[in-house]
Structure formats: structure tokens, C-alpha cells
């Protein structure tokens, strides 16, 4: 082993330790909360799993296929007997492992993803395949960043126009392509019945999470716990996860916490465990997040899969449209309906303002935030843009701005 490799190995070892520490301290922070209940332990356990891919692989009992972003239909993977696992990570320490190889102003989530992969490279089970919908500029560079095996990686070409016939057709073709890719990789044939069954299983999860969203909007559930549940999605097989969600619903029904302070809506870039700093700071500033449009939280389950008919094509079309048209990621060119989610929550619930989270380097959300700000302010709705990354140095500054915002 030459010096270079030795140095890399040492760094990897140190970073692995830091990642471990970051995850564990984040967990301890959650467990130390006044509103902690053993019902949350299951979800906190799941949130620790990304560090231990071997354990995760054993727990889900299926081959794992990693994916980026929300547009690859979970039901397809599930129906083919594989487990979809979202690569996204909110780990600051992991990002350090890859930071030197990428631009400073690059999306920290992508840095963390690459870092986590490098940590796992030598010691843990590799995924059977990777599926990458081409959303933002960073994501499309995934192949170059990771040197992943092209044979194992499938890029779903995401049409950035959703409300055009061509866009919808192309995306449906991509869904068929994904089926073909997975069939060839996994050596199984996707059956209509299996797909219909998976749709039902995920719809049940959608139904349960809908109840949890209602509880949260009514101010009976703190945002961090909702995010903990959302972040743990697909870190366990879907059915026991949904079952645990039922327990949570029972718990929230029985022990509703009362919303403290003003209700706000949290919009913008994804927030991922263990980096829950923004929801925690919002809470500390005396506000409660009653709704969000984060792709790692409520927006994992937009729309609903309502097939026109239960033929294979009908199911696939319904899935493709649910994951394409219902998505409000600002990487889409026709995204004017994004504000509707916010306005809908604002109309129905006591939400006083919008906090917009921009991850440094997350250009789509950054750009979109200015349009959103104009629209909301013209409607008389207070708006605060918070641009940050996974570091904690700016916490004090953010807290001050949030406290000032809470005073409005």
C-alpha cells in the first residue's frame, strides 16, 4: 500500500468515526427531547441504518437498488422483489470525504452521498443497481462523480416539461425502460398482479402518512418527529414500516402535543437526517412547522396512484404520472403549481409565514425561491429565505433571523 492509499485509508477511518458520532449525537438529541416516546425508537433505529448497509440489506431481505430523487416509482422496485433505497444523505462528516474532489459551492447532499459511498466501498454490500432520474445539474453528474459501473446505473431521462404530451409520453417510456433495466439486472419478469399488489401496499402507506400529515397540520405532532418518520421511509420493508406508522398514529391520537408558537410552512431544499438543524432552530425560535414541501418529507407522497384501469399499462401509466406530474421539484420548467401546496396549507391551517430553505449550491430551489418570495409577499404572506448547508457555524445567525421572523 503506498502512502497515498494509506492516507486515504486513515482519512476514511477517521471520517467513519465522525459519521458514527454525528448520527449518534443526532439520535441522542432526539431522544433527549421532552416529547420523546418509545414509539419513536423504531424510526430512530431506522435512521441509523444508512451507516450499516450490511445490516440494512439483512433487514429488508431483498436485493437493494439505490436511487436518487423521488421520481423512480417505489412500487416498481417492490413489485420486482428488490428494495429501493434512497441515496440521499444529510451527513456533514461524510461530505468531507469527497469535498476535495468537487467544487466548493456544490450541493452538500451530493457530497454527502459520494462520501457515504466511499465509506462503504470496501466493507459493505454493494447495491444491485442504481437508478438516477436526471433532475438537477448535480444529479446528472452522478456517474462522473462516483465512477459507478455504467452497466449497473440507469439514468431515467426526466422530461422537464410535465404538462406536455411529449413530456408525459417520454416519461412513460422511461418507466417502461426502467422495468426492462431492472428485469435484465435482476433476472425477473415484472407481473401485472405483483405490480397491482405493490400499488396497494404503497397506497396503504400513503393513506397512513396522510393521517400523520393531518395530525401535524393540526399542530399535534412536532415537525422533527414527522421528519424522522418521513426520513425513515424505505429504510425497512414497507409493510412493517406502515404498521409502525399505525402505532405512531395511535400514540399521537392519545398524546397530542400542543403546537407552540406561530405556525410556519417550510419550503425548499431537502432536509435529511442527521442534519435536522433547521427544523430544530425554527422550533427554538418559537415557531412550529405545520407543513412542508420538502422532497424528503411530505413530498415523498404527493398525489395518489389512481389507475384508470388495472392492466399493466394502466398501472404503469398511473405510477409514471404520479411520480412525474405530482412532483413539484423546481427542476421542472412548468412548476407554477408549486405555490398551490403552500397556499392550500395557508388557507386551511394557522400558518403565518413561509421559511424557505436553500441548500448552498442547490440552484433550482435558490432560483425558485425568488419567484416564490415575490408571489407570497404580494399576497401579504411573510417569507424568509435561509441559505445554509450542513455546517453548524451559522446556527447562531440563522436563529437570530428566525427569531426576528417570529416577531413579524
Amino acid at each position, binding site marked *: 500500500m503506498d502512502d497515498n492509499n494509506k492516507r486515504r485509508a486513515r482519512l476514511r477511518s477517521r471520517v467513519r468515526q465522525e459519521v458514527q458520532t454525528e448520527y449518534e449525537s443526532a439520535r441522542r438529541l432526539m431522544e433527549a427531547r421532552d416529547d420523546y416516546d418509545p414509539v419513536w425508537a423504531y424510526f430512530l433505529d431506522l435512521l441509523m441504518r444508512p451507516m450499516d448497509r450490511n445490516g440494512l440489506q439483512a433487514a429488508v431481505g431483498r436485493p437493494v437498488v439505490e436511487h436518487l430523487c423521488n421520481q423512480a416509482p417505489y412500487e416498481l422496485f417492490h413489485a420486482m422483489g428488490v428494495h429501493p433505497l434512497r441515496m440521499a444523505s444529510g451527513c456533514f462528516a461524510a461530505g468531507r470525504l469527497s469535498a476535495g474532489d468537487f467544487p466548493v459551492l456544490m450541493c452538500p447532499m451530493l457530497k454527502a452521498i459520494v462520501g457515504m459511498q466511499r465509506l462503504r466501498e470496501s466493507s459493505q454490500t454493494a447495491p444491485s443497481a442504481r437508478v438516477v432520474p436526471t433532475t438537477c445539474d448535480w444529479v446528472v453528474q452522478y456517474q462522473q462523480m462516483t465512477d459507478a459501473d455504467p452497466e449497473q446505473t440507469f439514468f431515467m431521462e426526466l422530461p422537464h416539461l*410535465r*404538462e406536455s*404530451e411529449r413530456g*408525459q409520453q417520454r416519461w412513460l417510456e422511461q418507466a417502461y425502460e426502467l422495468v426492462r433495466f431492472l428485469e435484465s439486472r435482476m433476472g425477473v419478469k415484472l407481473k*401485472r398482479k405483483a405490480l397491482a399488489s405493490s400499488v*396497494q*401496499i404503497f*397506497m*396503504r*402507506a*400513503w*393513506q*397512513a402518512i*396522510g*393521517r400523520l400529515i393531518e395530525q401535524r397540520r393540526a399542530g399535534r405532532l412536532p415537525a422533527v418527529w414527522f421528519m424522522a418518520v418521513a426520513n425513515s421511509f424505505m429504510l425497512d420493508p414497507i*409493510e412493517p414500516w*406502515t*404498521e409502525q406508522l*399505525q402505532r405512531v*398514529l*395511535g400514540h399521537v391520537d392519545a398524546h397530542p402535543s400542543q403546537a407552540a408558537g406561530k405556525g410556519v410552512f417550510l419550503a425548499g431544499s431537502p432536509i435529511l437526517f442527521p442534519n435536522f438543524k433547521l427544523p430544530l432552530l425554527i422550533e427554538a425560535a418559537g415557531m412550529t412547522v405545520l407543513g412542508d414541501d420538502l422532497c424528503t418529507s411530505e413530498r415523498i407522497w*404527493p*398525489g*395518489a*396512484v*389512481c*389507475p*384508470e*384501469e*388495472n*392492466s*399493466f*399499462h*394502466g398501472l404503469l*401509466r*398511473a405510477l409514471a*404520472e*404520479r411520480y412525474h*406530474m*405530482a412532483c*413539484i421539484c423546481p427542476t421542472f420548467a412548468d412548476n*407554477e*403549481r408549486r405555490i*398551490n*401546496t403552500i*397556499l*392550500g396549507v395557508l*388557507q*386551511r391551517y394557522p400558518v403565518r409565514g413561509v421559511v424557505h430553505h436553500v441548500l448552498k449550491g442547490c440552484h433550482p430551489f435558490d432560483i425558485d425561491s425568488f419567484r416564490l418570495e415575490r408571489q407570497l409577499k404580494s399576497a401579504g404572506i411573510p417569507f424568509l429565505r435561509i441559505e445554509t448547508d450542513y455546517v453548524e457555524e451559522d446556527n447562531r445567525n440563522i436563529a437570530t433571523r428566525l427569531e426576528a421572523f417570529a416577531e413579524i
Partner: protein
Amino acid sequence: MVFKLRLIVQHLFFVLLTYGGRFGFHMGFALPCFSCPFVMGCGGSCYLLSLQGNWWGLQMALANWGTVMGLQALYYLGLFVLLTLALNKFWCGWICPFGTLQDWFTYLRRRLGIREAQLSWSARDRLKPVKYILLAYMIVVPLLIAHAGLHYDFHLPFCRSICPAKPLMPLFAGSTRHLALDFTNTVTLVFSILSVAIAGGMLVGMFFKERFFCLFCPMLVLIHLLRKISPVRFEKEVGACLGCGNCRRNCPMDIRDVHEQKTDKAVLSEDCMLCMTCTESCPADGVLSVRFFKWRLFSSSRDYVARRFIKPHKAGSVKVKV
């Protein structure tokens, strides 16, 4: 469940309008739906027959203005207007027996696992004017017969040369008469060839494409003309729509307007038949609603979508509390 209620209403009216006359039930000659009068013992007659008819049609009203005959022709028009105002497109989605027949074909196709034929957006748009052309055809030809000496065998032009209900619906009363070619003269032969050929094509169209004939139905145009003064409203809360596309995909008529509408509240479009399938599949609370005057008849909700699209729990699967 709205779709179950609709199924019951559709079949009730299918029986009433196809066989009602045999039991003394008749809803008159101005129904805003394809209750075919060529069915012996039918329980009501489509207004399009009255519109084209030599004794009740528009040309009679014009030619006998101010007389009892003229008023009688207008009486059918008035009755049609009243019935249309009362129920608007519910006539199409809930009552029309020919619509129900088309839904049977769709049911059969789905049971056989054959997927629906898709029309491109441009093809769908190009088909839209056809029903206006058919409406003009059925108004102009009787006028030409009455005033321009056109041969009388051109009478009832829509019923006799276009409408597929005429050959198909009498089959339910045991009559194959309207499937025959009429060799009486050239006009009757051409009309019957058109009628039978269109019915054959439509039959297949109805099998592969849900509510295929409704894409061409001139009754939709007539009903649509009265939408603004009808108490039946189909509305969208445009500011709360997430654009998921369920309404568009589930629409039997492939209507895009409901999904695409971003400014206007009224979304009862020309081709809509108020089957409420879109509202049933919209997961956003209160985004789509059907009203009668100020009363809300049905409105979209996440809970409803869950009940509608999630099958009842089976042993071994996850139980979800609603």
C-alpha cells in the same frame, strides 16, 4: 361510493328507457340523452329525433310560427331546455342508455385485460368539431327538405345515417331491422350503408376507447350551450390543485381542460359528462366539486381516494386505520 351509485342509476335508467314503454312508462320526446325511439317499447325519446322530425323539428317551428303547430314544436324545445337545465351533463354520465352500453364495452375490455387505445392530443382536438358538424347536418337537412325540395328520404338525417344507437339499441328489444340495408332507393341504401358501417366501426371504437361515441355526440353540444344558466356546476379550486394529472388520466373522455385550468373556477367543459370520475380520483381536498345551486353534491378528498382506490384489507397485509 359515487361510482357505485352511478352504476345503479345508469342501469335503472337503461331498463326504464329501453323497456319502460312496455309498462306504460314514457318520459316524453325531448330527453337530452340517447334514448333511442327506434327501440320498440322504449321509455322515452331522444330530443335529436324531435329536433330533426318533420312534425316537431326546428323547421316546423319556423314554418308555423304563431300557430299551435309551431308552438308544439317549440314545446319540445322548451321541455328539452328545462330537462337540460335541471340535470345538465348528468344526462350523459348517469342516464344515457347508449352511454351505459358503451360503459359495458369498457368493462368487458378491462375484464379481458386489453388496454385502452390512446388518441394523441392533437387527434383528440381534431375530433372536437365533428359534433358541431353533425349538429349542423341535422338542422340544415330538414330545412332543405322543407324549403329547398330536397328528397324526403333525407329526413331524420342524423338518426338514419350516422347515429350508431339506431342499429344497436333496438337489438335490446330483439329487433335486427335497423341492421339491414335498405334497397328501396339510392338514398335509403346510402343512408343504411352509412348507418350500419358507422355502427360497426363505433362498436369496435367503443370497445377499445372508453365512451368513444361521446367524442362525436352532438347532444353534448346542445347541453353545453345551456351550462351557464344551469344550476349544475362543476368547479375547481385552481389555487389548490397540485397538478397530479389523475383527473386527466381517469377521464373517460380524455378531457385535459380540468387539469390544465389554472385561472377559471368553472371547469364543466364541452365534452364533460359529469361522471365525476375525475373528482373521485382527485386526492386534493375540495379541489374539484360538483354543485347544484349552492349545494355541494360531491367534492374531492384524500379520504375518498383512499376508500375508492385501496382495496379492503386482507389477512396478512397491513391494516391501515382511517
